[in-house]
């Protein structure tokens, strides 16, 4: 299985809720970047560790995140 987390970065408000619910602690807020709204958006540090639980996406108040998983049959 391969999990994939994608962000609609311009919509992110940098609230950090996704970061707080990630069981693998692979999300973080990128302080070096400011998006169009003036926030430091969320990002993923290690895709491979993602277990596609979807927590981050489910809690994100702004529906910024899409999580998919791909299975090789």
């Amino acid at each position, binding site marked *: 299985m391969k999990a994939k987390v994608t962000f609609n970065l311009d919509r992110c*408000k940098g609230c950090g809720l996704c970061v707080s619910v990630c069981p693998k602690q692979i999300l973080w807020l990128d302080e070096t970047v*400011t998006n169009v709204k*003036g*926030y430091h958006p969320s990002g993923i540090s290690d895709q491979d560790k993602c277990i596609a639980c979807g927590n981050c996406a489910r809690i994100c108040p702004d529906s910024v995140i899409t999580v998919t998983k791909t299975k090789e049959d």
Partner: protein
Amino acid sequence: MTRELIIAGFGGQGVMAMGKTLIEAGLKEGYNVTWVPSYGPEMRGGTANCSVVISTEPIGSPVVTQPNELIAMNGPSLKRFEPLVEPGGLVLVNSSQVENPACRPDVRCYLVPSMEEAGKLGNFKVANMVMLGAYIQATGALKLQTIEEMLASVFTGPKAHLVELNIRALQAGAAYVG
């Protein structure tokens, strides 16, 4: 003499505080002053701006609609307010937050990399002070010293060390355009 100024930027960049600092200094120097915030429905984020008038005469309209001066702290603000500036007016751009900053040819324009300058002082938070210093230097509207004196009475006790930092930020801004 009547200066009609708009200061605009993201919420959180301290545009309201810049305006208040200016009118306080203006009052100290004996001018008539007014400050009006534009207030939006959003608690955070979005854009914020305020109108500042500093004048030797009694002030009529406190709302500035055709500014002769503009401090634009980000791109959207520049886009929105620059077209309103009177020809021959002054535009101060926070070039750290504006991609490809460029100004109208018929205004006096200064690009000030406030974040970089503040960064040099070790504290991004004083970027607005850098802009203020730049503004004062570029316009001669007020005396730097007036604001420096005010800072001493604002930051007292455990915060006293911030006086120095803020003064250096003001001066850095002034030096940049000076």
